[in-house]
């Protein structure tokens, strides 16, 4: 019996040789933009993104929801609109902290950016620690719906959330520059915050491990000039701890590794992570696929390899085909490799190039690739 898209992906991650390289496509930037602007191709008007990917013959991936959601206790959480911002205040017995979000217009109204982070100065440490200590994660029923909708057509790519505990502190709570200033000036307080965040994320991980999910996302969005200096201190121990649990439960782990990764590649192999998703090679970063493969080790499944800009008309059909064929050959014999966008289908892309990758895999991506 032919493998389903989902089973083909899971078998590859498990190190089994399957019939052909899977193609796990991600089109949410393209889809959300064109849905918001009523500019989807006529054929696809009213379709879901998963239906479109399935129509193109690829495996789908779906994210931006998590298995566990956070509930807040012994504090007041007040949300209000201050156009164009959305402000959330966390009022605790120790004081108040707020976050100001702005929703991206260009990408469709689905992605929020922190215009003002939760952490603003030293006085916020005890308040944020209180918030984290009084946040209780619970199973997110929405996850079950998303998983059911995906079925065998691909993978729900989620877990505790978008980011691991350390990345949440660095990126979401503080922002990288403020994080490093605090790390220089008040390392003990940063450590305390990291510990409180890890305690919360540990509870979320337990919910994920118990849930009906095969691949658990543990982190995302690194850049080697930002994350390498603290990776061994903060990231590696968490990943190893999380992966002990995940592997004991017979599940796999992944991280969304779409940034410049050159100096992180050797550290990745120590994390016990099973998948590096959205690996982005030249010309969008300085790394080749061979460097990813050789540096991360044979036990890591590489998912990605097609820089998103290749899907745009700036690259001719021939340039696109040549790139895909070259990439497939570079990955021979093709074990533990899933083709994918790095990291998304751009707004100006030709959706039919998704189908073209599928065609080229039929011709050049049968396993083992010789």
């Amino acid at each position, binding site marked *: 019996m032919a493998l389903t898209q989902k089973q083909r992906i899971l078998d590859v991650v498990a190190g089994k040789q399957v019939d052909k390289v899977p193609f796990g496509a991600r089109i949410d*930037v393209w889809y959300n*933009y064109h849905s918001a602007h009523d500019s989807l191709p006529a054929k696809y008007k009213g379709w879901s993104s998963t239906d479109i990917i399935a129509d193109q013959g690829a495996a789908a991936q779906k994210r931006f929801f998590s298995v566990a959601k956070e509930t807040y206790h012994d504090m007041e959480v007040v949300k209000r609109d201050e156009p164009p911002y959305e402000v959330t205040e966390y009022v605790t017995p120790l004081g108040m902290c707020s976050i100001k979000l*702005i929703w*991206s*217009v*260009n*990408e469709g109204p689905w992605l929020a*950016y922190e*215009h003002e982070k939760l952490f603003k100065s030293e006085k916020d440490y005890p308040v944020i620690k209180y918030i984290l200590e009084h946040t209780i994660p619970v199973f997110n029923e929405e996850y079950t719906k998303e998983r059911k909708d995906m079925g065998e057509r691909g993978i729900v790519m989620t877990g505790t959330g978008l980011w691991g505990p350390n990345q949440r502190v660095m990126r979401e709570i503080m*922002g*990288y*520059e403020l994080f*490093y*200033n605090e*790390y*220089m000036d008040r390392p003990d307080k940063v450590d305390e915050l990291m510990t409180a965040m890890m305690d919360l994320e540990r509870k979320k991980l337990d919910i994920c491990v118990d849930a009906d999910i095969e691949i658990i996302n543990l982190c995302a969005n690194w*850049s*080697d*000039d*930002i994350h*390498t*200096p603290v990776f061994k201190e903060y990231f590696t121990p968490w990943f190893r701890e999380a992966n002990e649990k995940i592997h004991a439960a017979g599940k796999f782990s992944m991280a969304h590794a779409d*940034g*410049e990764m*050159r*100096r992180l590649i050797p550290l990745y192999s120590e994390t016990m992570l099973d998948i590096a998703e959205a690996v982005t090679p030249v*010309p*969008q970063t300085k790394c080749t696929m061979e460097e990813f493969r050789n540096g991360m080790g044979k036990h890591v499944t590489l998912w990605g390899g097609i820089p*998103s*800009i290749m899907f745009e008309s*700036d690259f001719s059909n021939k340039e696109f085909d040549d790139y895909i064929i070259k990439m497939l050959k570079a990955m021979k014999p093709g074990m533990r490799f899933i083709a994918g966008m790095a990291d*998304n289908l*751009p*707004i*100006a892309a030709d959706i039919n190039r998704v189908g073209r990758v599928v065609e080229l895999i039929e011709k050049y991506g049968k396993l083992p690739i010789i």
Partner: protein
Amino acid sequence: MSNIAELVQKVIAGDWKDIARLTQAAVDSGMKTEDIVHQLQGGMEVVGQKYSSGEYFLPNMMKSARCMTIAFDVLKSAMKGIKIDSLGKIIIGTVKSDMHDIGKNIVVSFLKGVGFEVIDLGTDVSEEKFCEAIKREKPALVGLSSLLTTTMYEIGVVIKKLEETGLRSRVKVIAGGAPVTENFAKRMGADAYASDGGQAVAICKRLMQA
């Protein structure tokens, strides 16, 4: 090692704890303030080179930038009435609909550190705002940053607007950001592309001489 040499080494190493004392010692030694500033800027240039080569990371740059802030605080009174020539004026911003600022901020730190006058317009900057800032500030250079494939074409939109408003010939445009490649930047009409903050310094210097 002389005070100034030690000071520069500390800037390169990002060791900020002794910077105030060493800067004051350089002033007390009778060294011209302009010369101290140029030596410090030379130190930041080395930091930029180390960042570009992959030896340094973001926190290295931040520590060195902190050293420069401390040194300039000490020099503030000595600099009164003295004109330190800037390497040139540049306005910089992240293009419309793009809220990312870390890459831009790294470039700003390096350019300021080596002696450029930098006007930072922030994030989500429309083509109209770039034009207004060019008219107001009369910079020699314009830096355009984009982190997303969804916003990288805004680089071309800004450059087109500069052409339509007759401002293009007044400035050189440098572009950069994660999805931006040299080919893409050139295709959008930029004069130059920089892959990181350290490289931006060398390229902005070259553009100033062109």
